[in-house]
């Protein structure tokens, strides 16, 4: 009994610290929004885009520090410029999307590193690259909450329009939507959420936040609305769990979140009802028994056909 209550006390300990509760809630929120966006990203084959944006914000952050501006503003601005730059170059050159993404984001990252190396004290690069949710300031919390709330609201209103524009550009136009404008809206949201995610998991792992939940949910359903719901649940719970457990493991929040997301993905990969490996095997087995049944039926038909002929 003593042992039991000691375990409970230990498990509840993180909630005694305000910074932990804050970290858990903020992570869950960021995880949910990133998961929402991930559904679109993976379907468009833009998975790399998350990575690109996360790296592209570095010069913006560095410049913002230099000029004494809020760091999120700098990050957001350079993220947007990179995203639009990518679509713009893509439109003009007919190069494949991945080539353009690689080109643009390494350029941005290089510029960022250059600025940082010229002004060595100006930025704590490690906190951008690895994130540090446990040390998040109240100011940043407010920032993240505002970004996430606005993004969620817009996505909630526009998710079907975005889906149509991404699924079938020309039909979207024929019902009076403007796919180009929707795409820009999406990039703005993605940049904003990347900035928010930087705080929780850092630049290197943002890509997991905006890819894995969507990829997992994709295996579990054939409906886009359901996919978004599942992805958000996965994103929010793994993020909260990662933040919570990082209390016991001293600060590896980003790593933990991503490990949990990967575990969920693996589970879906094996057990998903329709697209999982086990289901595929079951289907193969069912097929072979169906073939047996089918050939029996065929024989039956042949027989009855013969009978008809003889009676006629």
């Amino acid at each position: 009994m003593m042992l039991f209550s000691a375990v409970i006390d230990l498990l509840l300990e993180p909630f005694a610290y305000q910074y932990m509760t804050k970290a858990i809630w903020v992570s869950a929120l960021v995880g949910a929004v990133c998961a929402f966006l991930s559904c679109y990203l993976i379907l468009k084959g833009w998975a790399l885009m998350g990575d690109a944006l996360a790296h592209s914000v570095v010069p913006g952050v560095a410049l913002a520090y230099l000029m004494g501006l809020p760091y999120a503003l700098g990050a957001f601005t350079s993220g947007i410029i990179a995203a639009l730059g990518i679509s713009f170059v893509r439109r003009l050159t007919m190069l494949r999307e991945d080539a353009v993404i690689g080109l643009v984001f390494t350029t941005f990252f290089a510029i960022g590193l250059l600025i940082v190396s010229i002004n060595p004290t100006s930025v704590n690069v490690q906190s951008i690259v690895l994130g540090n949710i446990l040390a998040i300031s109240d100011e940043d919390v407010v920032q993240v909450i505002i970004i996430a709330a606005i993004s969620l609201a817009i996505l909630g209103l526009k998710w079907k329009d975005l889906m149509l524009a991404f699924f079938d550009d020309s039909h979207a136009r024929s019902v009076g939507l403007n796919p180009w404008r929707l795409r820009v809206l999406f990039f703005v949201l993605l940049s904003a959420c990347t900035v928010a995610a930087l705080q929780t998991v850092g630049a290197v792992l943002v890509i997991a936040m905006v890819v894995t939940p969507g990829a997992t949910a994709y295996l579990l359903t054939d409906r886009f609305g359901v996919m978004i719901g599942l992805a958000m649940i996965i994103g929010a719970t793994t993020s909260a769990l990662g933040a919570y457990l990082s209390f016991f493991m001293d600060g590896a929040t980003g790593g933990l979140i991503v490990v949990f997301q990967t575990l969920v993905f693996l589970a879906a990969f094996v057990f998903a009802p329709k697209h999982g490996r086990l289901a595929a095997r079951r289907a193969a087995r069912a097929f072979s028994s169906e073939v047996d049944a089918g050939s029996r039926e065929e024989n039956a038909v042949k027989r009855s056909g013969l009978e008809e002929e003889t009676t006629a």
Partner: protein
Amino acid sequence: MKSRVLEIHSETPARSLSAPSGRLMPSIQVNNITVSYTNGVAAVRNASFKLGASTICALVGVNGSGKSTLFKTLMGFLTPSSGDVRIAGLPVNTALKRGLVAYVPQSEDVDWNFPVLVEDVVMMGRYGHMSFLRMPAKSDRQAVDEALERVGMSDYRKRQIGELSGGQKKRVFLARALAQGSEIILLDEPFTGVDVKTESAIIDLLRAMRDDGRLMFVSTHNLGSVPDFCDQVVLFNKTVLAYGPTATTFTEANLAEAFGGLLRHVRLGGSDLHDDADQRRVTVLTDDERPLVLYGERDQEKHIKPDRGGAS
């Protein structure tokens, strides 16, 4: 045996598929347009024609004659470098915003792995009728049910869109155009890759919609079925070679000009056909499986309508 699909089609269009009252008169006006691609190919040159309500008009021409280009221009995807297009008297973009035009392209440029079901795709046709939240009302669901029923795809409504055969996919996108309930429907080769039964079902449906006052513009290679269901014809090769009522426009001479010797041309007359001095002769023109058959005295030949439906 008469198929279920055919029976459904012989009904008059039900309310939810027909256009709302107080509607604009459908029309297409093309005034001397020239359309070029970015590589400098002028695919359409100085083309003009005019179509009105209660019409099924065929667009006939060889491969590469610019039929698809013309459709894309009517949809505003390409902008003419000179001349202009008016739809129901409105500029193209205004007409699209009002949901006046539905379009089924020659081949769908969509991601077949997208997690949407057949019924979700057809529902996309209704977006123009919904409020900005895109919540389907009862009338929208009804229109979807009916459209699916009409193309004989009701049994597949819960399938993921990629899990269909080529012809079935085509039928789904036709259903979406039907569900859209537009006054003007543009069909770019709707009959390639669909079976004869479906083709006659679609034709019956087009007739019903014509009787409802709509305007259908259909590009096709099936010369034989043109006199059967089209009241107007536009013969096209980069420009309008001839256009007008089928009986006077769809003649051997015009077709020979449009196809420039690319048609198989078989003529039987005199002693090959008749034992007496009968002047009538048979002419068969074909570029694929559905030939055009003309019979009668020289220059007074009539279209022989192929026997459709039950016999095939």
